[in-house]
């Protein structure tokens, strides 16, 4: 039997201490805002203005027009000129440019000769993103004069749903919601309990009639509210600065958010039962943080990842939450259409919470 008044006492104490801990209190609101600004403005998968150099050995009006067309795509920006392919290679090696364009002396003839390529593009392929962007250059047409007709037959037509302007923040912000909540929720709970262990408060608490369930729920509840506040904050800032839409139901989003917060808090509790110092708690949190950022589909499309990475990703609650937020916010999906991900979060919470509670009672031995 859980005593509500004892649980209330723990909650009030927790809130009181949190209010006095200026740094943590600032983190609650400062962290999401800083992260969203950082990620929203810095992460951009729509790459532009890659540094390039050209070696135009043909130097005809046709080749010069081609170079101008390439620059007009805004994919590359020519920062230098070279005489030979070897010079281009040297520039690549030094890291001065990512893309080198070599136009051979017989460019005009090659353009009409279908069997030989007219232009060579040298790419720093160590970054696959650059390689992918360079592939776009293939589509730059070569036109003879202004009147001549372009022969273009498009077999496939692409229609971009949900984010037709291809703005990265639209995809990043819903994912960021998962990453930010994960960081704060997991770290706050793990540290909150370990801190009491370090300061000796826990030995006192264990000796009072308070039960481990009352203690755990009492400690976690204020953070659920904080998590929901953060959720609103991220939504608001995303809307205001990056025009990120919420096409589905906000209620669904909050329900999914609550499930995710609960999952992360239980994980935080579980961490707190396994470590002895706040520093260890931080390390454990980072240990879970990294795969959650990299393997959850936040950074890279999930289906494109290797099998093993996908398997690990499936275990992480963040993966499921990001699917939920992207579904609800961008694709107007309802929670019913996304049931498996939601159920995973609930199941994760129950399992993690149970293990944490079982481990907690055995603490001092």
């Amino acid at each position, binding site marked *: 039997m859980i005593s509500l008044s004892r649980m209330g*006492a723990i909650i009030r104490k927790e809130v009181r*201490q949190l209010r006095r*801990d200026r740094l943590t209190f600032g983190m609650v609101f400062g962290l999401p805002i800083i992260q969203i600004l950082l990620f929203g403005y810095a992460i951009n998968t729509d790459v532009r203005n890659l540094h390039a150099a050209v070696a135009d050995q043909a130097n005809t009006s046709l080749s010069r027009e081609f170079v101008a067309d390439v620059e007009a795509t805004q994919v590359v920006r020519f920062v230098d000129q070279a005489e030979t392919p070897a010079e281009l290679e040297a520039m690549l090696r030094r890291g001065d440019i990512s893309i080198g364009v070599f136009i051979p002396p017989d460019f005009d003839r090659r353009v009409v000769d279908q069997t030989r390529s007219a232009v060579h593009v040298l790419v720093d392929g160590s970054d696959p993103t650059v390689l992918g962007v360079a592939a776009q250059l293939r589509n730059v047409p070569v036109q003879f004069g202004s009147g001549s007709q372009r022969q273009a037959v498009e077999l496939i037509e692409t229609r971009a749903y949900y984010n037709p302007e291809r703005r990265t923040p639209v995809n990043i912000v819903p994912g960021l919601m998962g990453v930010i909540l994960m960081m704060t929720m997991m770290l706050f709970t793990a540290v909150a309990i370990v801190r009491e262990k370090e*300061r*000796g408060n826990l030995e*006192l*608490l264990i*000796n009072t*009639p308070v039960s481990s369930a009352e203690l755990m729920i009492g400690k976690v509840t204020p953070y659920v509210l904080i998590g929901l506040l953060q959720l609103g904050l991220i939504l608001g800032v995303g809307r205001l600065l990056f025009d990120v839409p919420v096409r589905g139901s906000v209620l669904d989003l909050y329900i999914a958010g609550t499930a995710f917060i609960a999952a992360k808090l239980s994980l935080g509790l579980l961490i707190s039962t396994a470590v002895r110092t706040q520093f260890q708690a931080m390390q454990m949190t980072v240990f879970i943080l990294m795969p959650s950022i990299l393997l959850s589909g936040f950074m890279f499309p999930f289906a494109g990842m290797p099998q093993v990475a996908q398997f690990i990703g499936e275990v992480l609650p963040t993966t499921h939450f990001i699917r939920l937020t992207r579904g609800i916010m961008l694709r107007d999906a309802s929670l019913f259409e996304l049931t498996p991900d939601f159920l995973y979060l609930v199941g994760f919470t129950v399992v993690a919470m149970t293990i944490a509670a079982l481990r907690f009672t055995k603490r001092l*031995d």
Partner: protein
Amino acid sequence: MNGDYAIEAQGLSKHFGNLKAVDSLDLKVPRGQIYGFLGPNGSGKSTTIRMLCGLLTPTEGSATVLGTHIPGRARDLRPRIGYMTQKFSLFGDMTVLENLQFISEIYSYPRTDRKARIEELLVRYDLTEQRRQMAGTMSGGQKQRLALACAVLHKPNLLLLDEPTSAVDPQSRRDFWANLFRLAEGGTTIMVSTHYMDEAERCHRLAILDRGVKVADGTPQHLQATTGMHVIEVLAEDPYAAQSAIHDLAEVASVTQLGVRLRVLISERFDQPLEIVESALTRAGVRAESIISSATLEDVFVAVTMGPEERAA
């Protein structure tokens, strides 16, 4: 309830790996008394107290605390015992008043009486001026009074204190003990661990622990009367020379220097202790005055914690 004892333990043991922190401890703590636990650091005092309040599960043995059997039903016991940890364990970032309020809520102290009880404790433990002060910024003595106030707030029948005076000045220690006696007069049984001899002397009864084993048990007077040792006090101008003259004698169990005085323990098996000491001093040419003395608690402690080969000396 089993009659006159607040705590009865049989064969209580706690092992951490190969270390026997507490080894087959038998205890009988009478109700309404102050029972001391004397022993050096690492002798198993804290471990025993933690087992008695259910924080640690005994490896072997069992105990009855206030009629409740442990291990097993330690939870039922919580509302009736008060526990003061060795390290200050209240919340440093909350005020004195907030700490007391929190404790009163956690123990479900009757809501209507809470305020009055907290006021009473603030006055009793001289904390009225500090009521709005953060607990973490108080002095050692004030922290200790707050810890005691919190431990007794719910009026427990049994109070377990784990080295409560290790971080406070002598005046605070005296006041603290005055408070303990007042609580004992009110019927509270108090078990207190310490490594101060003067504190041990104030206890109604005490047990001496050494490396997890109880080596003596009784009233301080009884322990002093039954050391099994003669005590000779030697007053010498050069105590160091006197010590080297006596120390290696086969009959001498131990020599402790206290300023210019030496306290020499000799087993009661030897009939004429004074002559043994005096002749050794004369042989060494040390000028000194020797008298037979009665055992202090410190002598008892030295006698019972020495190894068997020293004792046989």
